[in-house]
């Protein structure tokens, strides 16, 4: 395993590399078919390099554990706005998630609908391209339109355009209080309509999820966060607003609310069970219609715009959905399934050509997580 201890070492290594490398942060979020080549780990690139609570900004080396960052922020009563998911339970992996992995996968959580994804909080990157050149983009200030936004391009590029060495974020204050509203017994379409009504209210919903009936009763969940009086006020207002859907139970115990949304964020309901797991991003009101075509267990997030589906092994979910506006990604699957079904959603030809063109520029030797984001299967 290659384990550079500095950005300069990382650059030397990639400049000299003649063969593909498989880039790894904490190794807790493997996706796609295992990339060929020796493992290149970022875990030795660690440390928070700058943290200014008064400016709501943090800069850290890519291999820094997410837990370390979260603890650093918690000490100042701040947080990462986008609530990155921890994949370990769902994927049955072990190890220490790194912040670079969060960025490479543009990993976010239920708060995505209100606070944006990782890409929206990311304000700067440093990375090494496939030829070994160190490149920086963005910086440590919240507003920056100087040149092209390669920061966004790197978020969600899964190491195929470069190996991240440093990332900067804008932050938000931690909230004083949170509450979770629960509506029971709604079917999927009604639940999504209820969530839509809540999201279209002025009450600043920061989580809107639905867990369909699986032997018990279905639960629709809405999260509110902020100052305690404000949360109480908005909970009351939403209870009245949603009264014609179902009776609304309000949970205000902070620890309970946290646990509910942590489970939702990490999709723990599908942990430790057999079956492939898919993640579908769609227009929220399309959610229940799409889910109805899927043979498997469903969990909704993002007001219906994110569907987690657990399906029998090898089931081609994309084929059942047919054409739709959005994308489906294979998150958990056996090697066998991965060999047959592309992990990432096929793109229209002109976009695929642009993506391919960018990869050739940033990775001219074709050595960075080669083929990881390919949307067609290699010829056998």
């Amino acid at each position, binding site marked *: 395993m290659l384990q550079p201890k500095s950005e300069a070492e990382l650059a030397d290594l990639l400049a000299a590399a003649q063969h593909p490398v498989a880039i790894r942060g904490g190794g807790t979020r493997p996706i796609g078919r295992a990339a060929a080549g020796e493992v290149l780990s970022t875990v030795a690139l660690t440390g928070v390099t700058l943290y200014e609570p008064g*400016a709501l900004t943090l800069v850290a080396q890519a291999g820094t554990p997410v837990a370390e960052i979260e603890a650093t922020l918690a000490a100042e009563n701040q947080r990462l706005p986008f609530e990155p998911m921890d994949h370990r339970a769902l994927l049955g992996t072990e190890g220490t998630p790194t912040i670079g992995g969060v960025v490479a996968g543009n990993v976010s959580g239920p708060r995505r609908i209100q606070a944006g994804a990782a890409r929206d909080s990311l304000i700067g990157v440093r990375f090494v391209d496939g030829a070994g050149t160190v490149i920086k983009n963005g910086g440590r200030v919240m507003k920056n339109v100087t040149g092209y936004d390669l920061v966004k*391009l790197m978020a969600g590029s899964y190491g195929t355009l470069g190996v991240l060495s440093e990332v900067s974020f804008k932050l938000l204050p931690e909230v004083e209080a949170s509450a979770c509203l629960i509506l029971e017994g709604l079917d999927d379409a009604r639940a999504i309509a209820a969530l839509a009504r809540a999201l279209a209210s002025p009450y600043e919903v920061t989580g809107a999820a639905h867990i369909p009936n699986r032997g018990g009763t279905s639960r629709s969940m809405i999260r509110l966060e902020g100052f305690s009086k404000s949360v109480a006020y908005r909970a009351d207002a939403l209870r009245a607003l949603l009264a014609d859907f179902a009776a609304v139970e309000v949970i205000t115990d902070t620890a309970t609310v946290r646990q509910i949304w942590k489970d939702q964020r990490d999709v723990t309901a599908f942990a430790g069970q057999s079956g492939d797991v898919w993640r579908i991003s769609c227009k929220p009101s399309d959610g229940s219609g799409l889910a109805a075509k899927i043979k498997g267990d469903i969990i909704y997030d993002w007001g219906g715009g994110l569907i987690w589906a657990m399906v029998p092994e090898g089931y081609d979910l994309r084929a059942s959905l047919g054409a739709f506006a959005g994308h489906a990604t294979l998150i958990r699957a056996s090697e066998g399934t991965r060999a047959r079904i592309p992990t990432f959603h096929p793109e229209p030809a002109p976009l695929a050509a642009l993506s391919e063109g960018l990869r050739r520029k940033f990775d001219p030797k074709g050595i960075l997580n080669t083929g990881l984001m390919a949307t067609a299967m290699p010829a056998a």
Partner: protein
Amino acid sequence: MEMPKPNPAILAKRARIISRLREVLPFDAVIDDPHETRAYECDALTAYRCPPLAAVLPQSTAEVSEVLRICHEEGVPVVPRGSGTSLAGGALPTADSVILGVARLTAVLETDYDNRFIRVQTGRTNLSVTGAVEENDFFYAPDPSSQLACAIAGNIGMNSGGAHCLKYGVTTNNLLGVTMVMMDGTVVEIGGAHLDAGGLDLLGVICGSEGQLGVVTEATLRILRKPEGARPVLMGFDSNEVAGECVSAIIKAGVLPVAIEFMDRPCIEATEAFAKAGYPMCEALLIVEVEGSEAEIREQLDVILAIAKRHNPVELREAADSDQAARIWLGRKSAFGAMGQINDYMCLDGTIPVSSLPYVLRRIGEMSKEYGLGVANVFHAGDGNMHPLILFDANKPGDLELCEAFGADILKLCVEVGGCLTGEHGVGIEKRDLMLTQYSPSDLEAQLWVKDVFDPKWLLNPAKVFPLSVTETRRDQAA
């Protein structure tokens, strides 16, 4: 600011280019009369002007595609244009270029309150996007001060911000999808009503690419429900330092105001004389606005007012009603107009870490004395996006050059303290030659790769964003 010499081969076939454009567009959509092309000779950076070879005003994505296909075949540079309010020269033509204006593409294509988005043609003005959803109590969040005039096209081109982006983010955080025409005429759809990209985040790199990657004709934008209410407070301080510390303290306290605006003494004096908003005469003034229900506003303002009091304000004024709220905003909103009354000015847009605010303001004051040019500061303090207005006299020989040199020094200072050249106005031609103070040659090269991929012939707005010396070989291969 130097621009590339027009390509004589293109000027020589002007008539043919125009007649080919006329074949695909209605007669009045191709403007080639020299009297009329002058309307397109500059944007809001009026110091630089050059009429284009022609201007076209297509009415559909299909027409845009036809125009680009022809220009691609003929090797003619194209400068996309929204409303031409860019302060950076982003929409400035060259004599051998065609201006492609989207001003006739103004339709609302879809409004969807359940899924909280609106799809519009990009010639529509920023304010009229909110106008289209206002009756249902929704709004489009990014609100540049130019919102009455500027188009969504230019907002996407520049990744524009506004006074309320501390809470709601800038254009890129509110843009869900685009229809874009590539230079060769290919129409692509990226994103839509769903969140995040399936593959690489192409939408993210298109937003803010200053018309260099494609012509955006339609956009899907996130819309939000209006808050129940909003209220500003005004605070005066007897030094910039203390005002800067107060901003940091508010942010650290866990309240997130929707806006924190800052004005210094020269700006307060000028706006008072012009707008008579009743501002206190002091060294620094903050306008802090919070949103929510009455109880929520009270809760947040109590925290903010307590912090302000710890910083010995010379004035602390909470709006008691909407009239007073409007008065508090009046001065801020007329600040640019007020400065324009007393002087020519150049508006800079560097961003700095909030913690460097006092130091940067002090240095700007010192440099102002060295250069002998006045500066007024008015800006978005919560996110460190400065707007120093350098005052000069356009009729005085050498003053513009002096002002530009001063501006460059301020921007270098912003970079020095860890900030950047531009927070929301874009690079255009204005900051092009300073790019190497912020980025290394390889940092820039990586950005050029993106253009190489999207526009291999380097025909879209080619003389912008990057120093001309850096892009020369690429632009030449096009010619």
